């Protein structure tokens, strides 16, 4: 079963959130999600300055199998989209919780829904039969 690092929080739609030291957050999709999608061939990330609402589709990851929208867990302003993904979308497959991050943003308000702890996310995966 895919691991869920304990220091992150999660959504039911398989995104993760990492709090950074400068007050911004980093967002990506989980290892479970990348495994389900298969080899990724494109990743579209939002541009710096874009303002996102909680729950808004903020990125697209596309594998040979399917294109999948990524939903922004927290409202805020984008401070960066991962620049490495344009040439190496496979970073998401290889290191979903690290080098495969999708975007960073400065939060403006509360999350879309309650974010799950690592234990709660792992329970969700077990319930889904992963």
């Amino acid at each position: 079963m895919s691991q869920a690092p304990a220091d992150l929080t999660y959504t039911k739609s398989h995104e993760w959130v990492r709090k950074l030291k400068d007050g911004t957050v980093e967002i990506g999709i989980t290892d479970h999600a990348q495994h389900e999608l298969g080899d990724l061939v494109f990743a579209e990330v939002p541009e710096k300055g874009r303002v996102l609402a909680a729950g808004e589709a903020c990125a697209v990851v596309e594998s040979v199998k399917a294109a999948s929208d990524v939903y922004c867990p927290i409202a805020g302003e984008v401070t960066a989209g991962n620049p490495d993904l344009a040439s190496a979308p496979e970073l998401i497959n290889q290191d979903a919780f690290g080098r495969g991050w999708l975007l960073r943003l400065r939060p403006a308000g509360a999350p879309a829904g309650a974010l799950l702890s690592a234990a709660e996310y792992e329970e969700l995966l077990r319930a889904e039969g992963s």
Partner: protein
Amino acid sequence: MGRHTPLYDLHKSQGARLVDFGGWDMPVQYASQIEEHHAVRRAAGVFDVSHMCVIDLTGARTREFLQWLLANDVGKLTRPGKALYSCMLNEAGGVIDDLIVYFLSASDFRLVVNAGTRDKDLAWIRRHAQDFGVEVRERVDLAMLAVQGPQARQASVTLLAASDRERALALPVFGGAAVADWFIARTGYTGEDGFEIMLPGEKAVEPWLALNSLGVVSCGLGARDTLRLEAGMNLYGNDMDESTHPFESGLGWTVALEPAERRFSGREALERVVAAGSARQLVGLLLEDRGVLRSHQKVIVAGGTGEVTSGTFSPTLERSIGLARIPSGSVTRVEVDIRSKLLAARTVKPPFVRAGKSLLS
């Protein structure tokens, strides 16, 4: 639970992700579909294609039967072991299936048909074989391995007795021969050289493992699809079906209208199409914007619309490619509606890749 080939447990033990394909639980990939694809273009890969259906036909009038049954002409097969690719058409000229037919001897031919159309094909064949006194035998006892890539044939023959190796290597393209208890054919669905090997089902595991130990990579259906599309090969159910005829499916080249005296199933309907000109054509597409072509996406051309029939991301080209059915006529640029955005594509005469290299300028 779907049907299992004799290699099912082996696929699971190698960590394959399994999916339903035509009622069979088949490996779609082992570790990485893209790496499996590259292995076939650069060296060699092995695929389990045991889900496909092998049908042996026997009888004095088998050749005559097949000259009625198939749109391509088995009259061209004069040397035992030679094969050809053909469509099998209904009376309206629609494609029932595409298949390979092997001439084995004066009264013996072999067909290999698609897994998903097995029941339909067998019913059609059995019904019409009766009129020619031809015996139809489905070979459920056989498994089939496809070993494909520039090193595939060399790797495969190391599994044979030394006295059989030269004969196997001497097979011409689209030729087959019985070697020990294998039937080896120099055919494939990847655009690379290689063999498709039909062998007793209970003996399929050992050769697979032996090939792995020679560096031949286990490959799944995901890589099979990206390879065949790069090679410009059709997939039944996507690129053609019973509602489409060969001339609008890029398969006109497989129809033998000569000799004119050969009456075959669907001929009259095709003659009407030829007389009027086909209203639609199948073209290759190369997507120029970032994205992935997929079946059923709408294609917009000057003065009409069409549909993508097959699409994928090509690992060799690092671009998206596909096949599409559009109105006939000279067309170079199209737009494709992908998730409500119109993306630019250009038409390409397939194949897109040959001998591992891009054919695009």
